[in-house]
């Protein structure tokens, strides 16, 4: 029952995140989606991933969104799409149906259980390459944050430059 309620909540939040006109409201609905996805991950038996998703997805990413929206300013987001609305509906519904046909009949089998190492052993022992890749990604993220922050500094520094030199 809780799974079903969470599912409905996730989908409602996601649809509202797309539908809402104001960007800041959209970011807040996205944070709600993240929080509910974290709850669903917890219910699925992955509490570590749930906590990380809650802190990163609902916390950090929302802060980044609010910061970026502050920098760019709120714009009316009711522009018409680049492709026609009915075509977009048909394509997305078709892809959903195809995916559903592919996935739904196959998921009710019993889980085979292998003897498996712990999360720590799998993450740090078996997948070192991914950890290296994550380090590289975090470096890219730092550069991205510098891009976000540097924008404000350069915008603020240009008018203030003459005052500094005086």
């Amino acid at each position, binding site marked *: 029952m809780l799974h079903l309620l969470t*599912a409905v909540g996730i989908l409602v939040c996601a649809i509202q995140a797309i539908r809402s006109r104001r960007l800041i409201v959209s970011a807040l609905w996205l944070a709600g989606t993240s929080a509910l996805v974290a709850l669903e991950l917890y219910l699925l038996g992955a509490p570590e991933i749930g906590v990380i998703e809650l802190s990163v997805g609902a916390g950090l990413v929302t802060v980044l969104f609010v910061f970026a929206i502050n920098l760019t300013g709120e714009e009316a987001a009711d522009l018409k799409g680049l492709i026609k609305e009915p075509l977009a509906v048909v394509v*997305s519904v078709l892809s959903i149906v195809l995916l559903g046909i592919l996935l739904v009949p196959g*998921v009710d089998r019993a889980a085979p259980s292998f003897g498996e190492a712990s999360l720590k052993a799998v993450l740090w022992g078996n997948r070192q390459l*991914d950890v290296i890749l994550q380090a590289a990604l975090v470096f890219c*993220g730092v550069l991205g944050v510098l*891009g976000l922050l540097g924008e404000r500094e350069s915008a603020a520094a240009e008018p203030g430059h003459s005052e500094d030199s005086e």
Partner: protein
Amino acid sequence: MNLSVPNIVILIVIGLLGVGAYALLTVRNLIKVVVALQIMVKAAMLALVLAGRLQGQENLGQSLALTVIVADTIVAVVGLALAVEVRRVVGSLDLKALTTLRR
């Protein structure tokens, strides 16, 4: 189709992917595009955890989901930084304003 836990999660995954795909096709604001990507990545993450659980390799699925969370955050950061730069250079967040070709 009964509403067992894997089926409910599959429904969430399909729904989130559908919403994200529709948004990517229709939305023109750059920040909204990043929102749509975030929604689709959340579906992928749930699917990885569910697949690990169904195959009896929960920890492998969870560690892959962790990688997805990191990659997803970096995509958001770089996308938002790009949006800020585009807004500064072009003066608008509209995707259509980015192209210099006539449509």
